[in-house]
């Protein structure tokens, strides 16, 4: 069974979202997603300052097996990306909820966070895969 931290929000497309008090959210892919994809070899991140709509394809995680799109979980502006992933894509495998974070968004509409799933709802999605 993969790790699904209680304090995070989730999407159906296997992104996790950590909401901060400053109106910013940190985004990555779940432990379950990294497990399915296997050894990461290349991560393409969004441009800083780019404006994303919820559901936009904004990153690519590529493992030995396949390349997969990562979607913006909420609408917002990219304020930071995890530069370490350029040389160490394996951080997503090793620590998907920590050092393997992907990007940070300044969110436009905090109410969108309510439409994301909580841990128990995501566990159901996971078990259907």
């Amino acid at each position, binding site marked *: 069974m993969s790790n699904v931290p209680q304090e995070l929000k989730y999407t159906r497309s296997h992104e996790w979202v950590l909401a901060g008090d400053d109106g910013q959210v940190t985004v990555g892919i779940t432990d379950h997603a990294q497990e399915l994809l296997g*050894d990461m070899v290349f991560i393409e991140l969004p441009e800083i300052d780019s404006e994303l709509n919820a559901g936009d394809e904004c990153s690519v995680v590529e493992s030995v097996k396949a390349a997969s799109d990562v979607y913006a979980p909420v609408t917002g502006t990219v304020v930071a990306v995890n530069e370490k992933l*350029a040389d160490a894509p394996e951080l997503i495998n090793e620590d998907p909820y920590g050092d393997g974070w992907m990007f940070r968004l300044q969110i436009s509409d905090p109410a969108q966070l309510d439409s994301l799933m909580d841990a128990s709802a995501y566990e159901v999605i996971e078990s259907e895969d």
Partner: protein
Amino acid sequence: MLNDSGGIIDDLIVYFMNEDWYRVILNAGTHDKDMSWITSQLKEFSDITLTERPDLAMLAIQGPEAIDVFTSLLPGTAAEKVSSLAVFQACDLGELFVGRTGYTGEDGVEVILTAEAAVELWRKLMAADVRPIGLGARDTLRLEAGMALYGLDMDESTSPLVSGLGWTIAWQPEERDFIGRKALQSEKQNGLQQRMVGLLLAGKGVLRSHQQVQFADGGKGEVTSGSFSPTLARSIALARVPATVSTGDACDVDIRGRQVAAVVVKYPFVRNGKAVIEIEHV
């Protein structure tokens, strides 16, 4: 096995056992079209019978220690026979048919046996610390070894000559009239337009099937299959490119809209777990 126009129906293996018996190992993915092609050709040969063996299974045991571990599970005389097999040679041990081949670039055997015996052998292998691998791992191994994959690197529209498989064609004796010979001869006489090369990615990313390759002189090619090489820690690929391209040529590959630099290399990329290409200059 070629069609009349020299296209590849399947890259199967045929073992010559004796004058009366050949064993064919075909790709599971091309089974139906292979069988219907062979059956239709056989109409002209009343003295040949084709017997399918759905009761048999195959296990591939691959790696530097494959022969030692596998033969340790066999009785003495059988073990000796297997150890002395040359590459691509096979022996019939009654319950087991063992060929010294594989699809990984490593030493090893492919063992053909009844489904029941396969389960038993599998358990013995697991007990002897042999580990199963998945298709992803198998694919990186075959690509590192520069082995073409049916359906991506070759198909019915490509001849062996433009698929890096010219070495498999037995042209001699001259009167050997195999299906597709005429087409291949005229393809050669007209001058080959394309060839298969290896690519080593210099930048970041992963080469994948169908990515477009651009050369400085305007020549264009296409990645036929690619992946990430764990041994080289770089992405590698097989690509079909203009015949004028040479080893060492630089090119750009379109990876989802980014132009990423790559260089043409001779393959295989890796043999028996060791790099056989120079990657310093990239």
